[in-house]
């Protein structure tokens, strides 16, 4: 028991899943196919590696630990998307063609399919039979952030573990302990990190994000208050310049407008995330109608999903800003 716990040592949060997988090892009821689904940064990959470590090192000293992280273990096969997707050829050669060969040194042979949702429908179909009737030593782990992109026949053949975004306290704790941040800064970042430990680390190393966000909000407020059409376009341009970080900014804006909505309904309360900016919240909520807020949130979420399809980003941003401006 203790040894398995060591295997899962580096994982932050997700205690229930750790417990479940550990119990499965103890009960000796290792399923042949697992799906780890959840948002990015919710420890899916790390969990998969840890699980693999626990299985592969069962009767042997754990010296092979580093080989797992280095993608260098003979009985652990990682499958990554080639370009934009995982190809049928990869499934055929790396999994179907390989799984009948017995493990080299361990009791198990583990296949981790990263970003499994990038498998096309034919690729997923190719996997079906193998997924169902894998040899007893074979374990296939599919990691995905979009469960609905997998065929129901795939999901039905696997055990599904859903990863929730990490809680703020967990991230806050981690930042304090491992990144040496002060409490106030750690809290601020944990709120912005959206449940992702990776983003939290990224944020903690970045510039002064708070100031930057404050500026962005000031800009938006100007659009709302003065109905200034010129600042719509200048703000649009500003957002375009931040292209690389747009995802993060959009997330922030979505949370911000959600806060406005909550503030509007209930006034000051414990569910508001951006507590430190109450004055701005008040001003925004004074100028925006319920419908506008809802529309804006909708716009942002559509824009976020459209980003994958190479849409005209500038037009999208400007539409959103114009929506903020209109009455």
């Amino acid at each position, binding site marked *: 028991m203790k040894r398995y716990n060591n295997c899962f040592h580096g994982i932050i949060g997700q205690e*229930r899943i750790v*417990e*479940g997988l550990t*119990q*499965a090892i103890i*009960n*000796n*009821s*290792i*399923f*042949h196919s697992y799906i780890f689904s959840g*948002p990015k940064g919710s420890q899916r990959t790390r969990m998969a590696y840890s699980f693999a470590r626990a299985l592969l090192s069962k009767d042997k000293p754990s010296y092979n630990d580093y080989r797992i992280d280095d993608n260098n273990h003979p009985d652990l096969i990682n499958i990554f998307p080639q370009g934009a997707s995982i190809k049928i050829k990869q*499934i*055929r050669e790396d999994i*179907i063609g390989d799984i009948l060969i017995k493990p080299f040194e361990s*009791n*198990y042979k583990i296949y981790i399919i990263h970003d499994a949702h990038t498998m096309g429908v*034919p690729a997923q*179909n*190719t*996997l*079906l*039979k*193998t997924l*169902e*009737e894998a040899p*007893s*030593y074979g374990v296939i782990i599919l990691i995905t952030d*979009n469960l*609905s992109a997998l065929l*129901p*026949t795939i*999901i*039905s*053949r*696997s*055990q*599904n573990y*859903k990863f*929730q975004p990490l*809680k703020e306290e967990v991230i806050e704790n981690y930042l304090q302990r491992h990144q040496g941040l002060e409490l106030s800064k750690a809290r601020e970042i944990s709120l912005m990190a*959206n449940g992702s430990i990776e983003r939290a680390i990224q944020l903690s190393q970045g510039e002064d994000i708070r100031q930057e966000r404050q500026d962005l909000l000031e800009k938006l407020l100007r659009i709302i208050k003065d109905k200034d059409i010129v600042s719509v376009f200048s703000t649009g341009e500003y957002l375009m310049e931040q292209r690389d970080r747009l995802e993060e900014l959009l*997330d922030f804006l*979505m*949370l911000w407008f*959600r806060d406005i*909505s*909550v503030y509007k*309904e*209930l006034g000051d*309360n414990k*569910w508001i995330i951006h507590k430190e900016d109450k004055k701005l919240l008040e001003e925004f909520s004074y100028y925006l109608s*319920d419908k506008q807020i*809802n529309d804006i*949130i909708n716009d942002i*979420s559509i824009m*976020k*999903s459209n980003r994958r399809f190479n849409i005209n980003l500038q037009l999208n941003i400007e539409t959103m800003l114009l929506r903020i401006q209109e009455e």
Partner: protein
Amino acid sequence: MGYIALYRKWRPKQFEDIVGQEHITTTLRNQIMNNRIVHAYLFTGTRGTGKTSMAKIFAKAVNCPNNHNGEPCENCNICEEIESSRVLDILEIDAASNNGVDEIRELREKVKYPPSLGSYKVYIIDEVHMLSQGAFNALLKTLEEPPSHVIFILATTEPHKLPATILSRCQRFDFKRVSVKDMVDRMAYICNEMDITIEEEALELIANNAGGALRDGLSILDQCLSLSKNNQKITYEDIVDILGLVSNEWLYQISQSIIEQDIYNTMELFHQVIDGGKDIIQMAKQLAEHFRNILMAKTLPQPQEILELSREQIGRVKNQGEKPSEERLLSYISSLSQIENTIKYSSQPMIILEMELIKLCKNPGAENLKELIDRIETLEREITNLKSVKREAKIPPSPKKSSRPLQEESITPEEKVQDTIVPINKGLTLEEVKAKWEEILKEVKREKVQVEALLKEGELAQLNGNKLIISFDLGFHQAKLSEKDNIKLLERIISRVMGSLLIIECVMQSQLSFQHQEEDPVQSAIKIFGEDVVEVVEDKED
């Protein structure tokens, strides 16, 4: 090591083990007994309904020399050989990974060799929908006229992807979804065999969440088993936990606070479960389902026949349904199920559901449209009433007697008769009619737009007893409006609005003009300048 998933370990070995597909097992067994086996079968149906298992059993049964009632005997040499998949006569082909023309050609080559052990060679082509176009066509001839010792069984979840030429060559069997009851029975049997103690409700919950696929159900059960410590009893709560479901109690509470439009309480409840790490899609789904239960309990006379709830729960659900209207419940259900889709593809599902809940609390959705119209109408009426009060205050009622002399001259003999029949005029004055004129026009417009257009051209001239005289400049307008239907319509509406019976007469302005000399100067002023100039009357007073 060596653990085998439940759905593999308990794959049915005999026809009678297959759950919920009696219509197929009976047919197949009869075919075997009567020796009417055809050469090509197509098994279709959703995942986890037993297609592959059925194919395997069928392959065994046709080869078993001493099968009884069509079931394989499980004891003979052949059955054992097949069970341990050591026989080359049964070929299970994964069409998804062998989907090219080349693989099918190879198959065609081998088809002609007779079976080594039993009497039939069975090709099970699983996931057959993934074959390429060329591969399907390469298969056609063989599928139609294979050697007598060959049976093809094609299995797929998506029969619509197969070419019609394949479909027409096979005997097709559609597998039904497994009912909740059948699934519970099967899982209870497996648990019993494996010495697992599990609550009956827990099994029902699993079955309800498996969507008619037994394999899904067994996968969930498997997950519970791997979590259970030292073979403890598996409870309803364990399953709720694994599936990330919210409790019934929570559903009652949050639906109640949505109905009561209590945003604070709704948020409180919502965040309670969010912190508990529940699945958001499931949450939206369950909430929609709960509102559906409420709606059913509200509308159906015998809800217990449709709803799978206990008597006590139905009473509770019914209680909740007392306050909200059906339309409101429907709008809850539709917005929640719409949001379910958005959530699936969103990276911030929590925010989207949260906003939706606030929206639901704030505007309970489209109320009955008719209700709304009625409310607007009463509002309008009140506004016009207010206006008329204002106007009356401004206009001093003109002396009634001034209109007296006009009366005799404009009355036709015919109307005289009517006059005597309906003498109901509760002392209405022309001003009162004018005050309500706008409202009358609006009412007329609703019934017949043309009449309203004509009426606008006319002018209220006089009110003699219960006869209202409307004057026109143009003969056309006068004549048109004088048509029987139009007059009737007008009379009906005006009488209704004014609350007393009135007769309408349309005359030409010129017919009236000479009478004007005798008329009250106020009236003539109104005639000349139009109604808007009523202010003039006041001036005159000064």
